[in-house]
């Protein structure tokens, strides 16, 4: 009798260890599985060009998702990032006449202003972030559309298009370097700087953070400013790549991809430790699904269902308890 109970308790432990491991590494495991399956079944998937394509296309999601990682870690959410992409895109394209550098700075600036405004409202009036960013999502896109009368804005400005099309050594897209630099910066902010500690502390226990002397007001504003600026940067790169700005289309539903990537990447949705590496994996997963579905000629509508299933799978694997 005694031995039986002992044995079963050991099994329980092993079971728990296994689950813990799955919980911790669910995202990379899923990513490897996804790559393996596609390498075998999707024609031309295991191909350098496909890789470059995936990397170019994931840039916008990654930049917004990195900002979103900080926002979600702080216990908030920002669904206006897609619209911020649109406004920075159209503002930059519209002001290319002043020169490339001023135009890009203007685009980033207007994004930062959006973020500061959102952060201010949230911090000052203690309104739930989703309630604040929902009208911002609608309103900012509205302004973006008004700027060019909802028309597609084409331009021919090689110096600007360089930002989205240049390839180092003829093959490595500039986006790869942008992603590396931004990812490393956000990782550094989240893990090495005191700011990252404050973000996490506020997401984990807001009241205690305030009583510990953290300037919750300024930190909140900074978080949303970083998020919006990164989204705006994503919009600028996308605009440069397309040599056109379309405020109706650019960044649409981007917030959902970004949030999904952060969730899949393992940053706790109710606030806590920002998992920057996890977010990168999450973005890769979402982008590979999109690309693979295209390459297999599966209709777009099915790809959405597939995406949903994979996201649920990832969240299930790393759920609490």
């Amino acid at each position, binding site marked *: 009798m005694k031995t039986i109970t002992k044995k079963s308790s050991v099994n329980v432990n092993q079971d728990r260890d296994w689950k813990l491991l799955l919980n911790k590494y669910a995202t990379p495991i899923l990513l490897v599985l996804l790559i393996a399956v596609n390498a075998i079944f999707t024609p031309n998937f295991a191909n350098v060009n496909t890789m470059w394509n995936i990397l170019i296309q994931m840039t916008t999601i990654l930049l917004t998702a990195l900002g979103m990682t900080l926002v979600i870690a702080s216990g908030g959410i920002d669904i206006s990032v897609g619209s911020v992409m649109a406004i920075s895109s159209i503002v930059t394209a519209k002001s290319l006449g002043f020169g490339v550098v001023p135009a890009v700075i203007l685009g980033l600036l207007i994004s930062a202003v959006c973020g500061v405004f959102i952060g201010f409202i949230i911090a000052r009036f203690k309104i739930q972030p989703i309630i604040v960013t929902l009208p911002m999502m609608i309103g900012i896109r509205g302004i973006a559309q008004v700027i060019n009368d909802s028309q597609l804005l084409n331009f021919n400005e090689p110096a600007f298009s360089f930002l989205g099309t240049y390839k180092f050594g003829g093959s490595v897209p500039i986006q790869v370097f942008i992603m590396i630099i931004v990812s490393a910066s956000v990782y550094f902010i989240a893990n090495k*700087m*005191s700011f990252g*500690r404050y973000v*996490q*502390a506020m997401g*984990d226990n807001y009241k*205690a953070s305030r*009583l*510990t002397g953290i*300037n919750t007001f300024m930190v909140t504003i900074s978080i949303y400013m970083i998020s919006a600026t990164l989204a705006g940067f994503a919009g600028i790169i996308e605009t440069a790549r397309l040599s056109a700005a379309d405020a109706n289309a650019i960044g649409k539903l981007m917030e959902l991809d970004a949030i999904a990537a952060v969730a899949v990447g393992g940053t706790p949705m109710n606030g806590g430790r920002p998992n920057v590496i996890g977010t990168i994996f999450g973005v890769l997963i979402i982008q590979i699904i999109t690309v693979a579905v295209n390459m297999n000629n599966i209709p777009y509508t099915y790809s959405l269902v597939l995406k949903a299933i994979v996201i649920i799978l990832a969240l299930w694997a790393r759920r609490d308890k």
Partner: protein
Amino acid sequence: MDERILLHMKNISKNFPGVKALKGVDLEVKKGEVHALMGENGAGKSTLIKVLTGVHVEDSGEIYFEGKQIFTNTTLQAQKCGISTIYQELDLIPELSICENVFLGREIMKNGMIDWRATEEKAKAILLDMGIKVDVKGVLSQQSTAIQQMVSIARAISINARLVVMDEPTSSLDEKEVKVLFNVIKKLKAQDISVIFISHRLDEIFEICDAITILKDGERVGYSAIKDITKLQLVSMMIGRDASKIVSRKKSYSKDKMSNENIIETRNIVREPKVRGIDIEVKKGEVLGLAGLLGAGRTELARLIFGADAPQSGDIYINGKKVKLNLPKDAIKAGLGFCPEDRKVEGIIPHMSVKENITLAMLPRLTKMGVVSKKEQEKIVNKYIEALKIKTPHMNQAVRNLSGGNQQKVILARWLCMNPELLILDEPTRGIDVGAKTEILDLIEKLAEDNISVLMVSSEIEELMHACDRIAVIRDGKKAGELYAEEIGEEAIMNSIAEGGK
């Protein structure tokens, strides 16, 4: 059995994992009686009420209501028996109208539709009966807390409640509103409806109640008609201390030797409803205790001094200079530290490590160009883990996995590493085991030797007597008395808590 007995809870026991919440408690309430249920936090009041109202199911014991044994295993069963509860957080729907709230779930129907006219008239009648004139079609959320409470009571009456349980109904009311509530309670009495009344305010108990049951550590330690008991007896029973056991520490200060340097002073500081004009000062190297019953305003005063809440009026002086503390960070800059009452809710950052929790307040000092110096950080953390004997496998352990006592030490370390001038400790030993408790009390003693002042809120008289040079007694938001080291004795403190003497 006495015919006048409405409710008889017999020998009720209830265990929670690791805690015996109720150990064979009796409670008898007569018809038309207002019965006070008293006891310190954790004495078992709430558990007893929850057993009665069907939120918890008792492990053993019997409940008799109007002479018949009843089983209240769900809240619905309790309601059907005629037991209604007015909770601290009202269980009404704020966006519905008053009359809708009164009849929620029991709408008056006519031809399959709600009969609005009857609903309005009946709600109006019930409220008028209670002496409340109010537009019953108005939205509830626009009414004061007091009126909302009356609606809650009206709802109870409309269910034909025989017994209404009021859990701290006055805690969010001002004086005028309390009077209205008491009038309603008197009307209930006149209708032979009984009330169980829970409050921490002694004056109220003596004003409105007929009988009293006192709980302590899950047992009934007293039962009496209100006219046969004095406030002092009541407080002694609630706190239940044996004065001979207390060994007080070597006091460094007495009335004559007291330093004249005030680290902090408050002048007529007000934040209604809990703080109603308090003057206190903490001197250099002094341990000042704040005594008083729960809800007297001690925590609220501590929070005002730390800038966690803003005062409505009054001044705060730090080292003789008038200051305005808008946020905790201002107080921290001025050399203050604060260990809050509820460690889990306001103290620890649960998923962060011991290391990060200890250094959270001092990060600005460890940071160059926004980057945290890991080396210095770990040096400090190691120093305090050792100094305070924090039991943790390593400094990267998540703080939520530590015991309560060790979590408290982590928060103490968070402030000690800032070299504070004044440490505010709100119930520093609540919910931690005896060993850690002694260590923390020893630490407070050592702080005073190092000339760090301490302002300590505690509900444990024994602890205050052990640690403090001076004790200020807070009662109903005002300072009721002050005792110096040589005068500190249990009797004196209790007298002050009960009567506001001295």
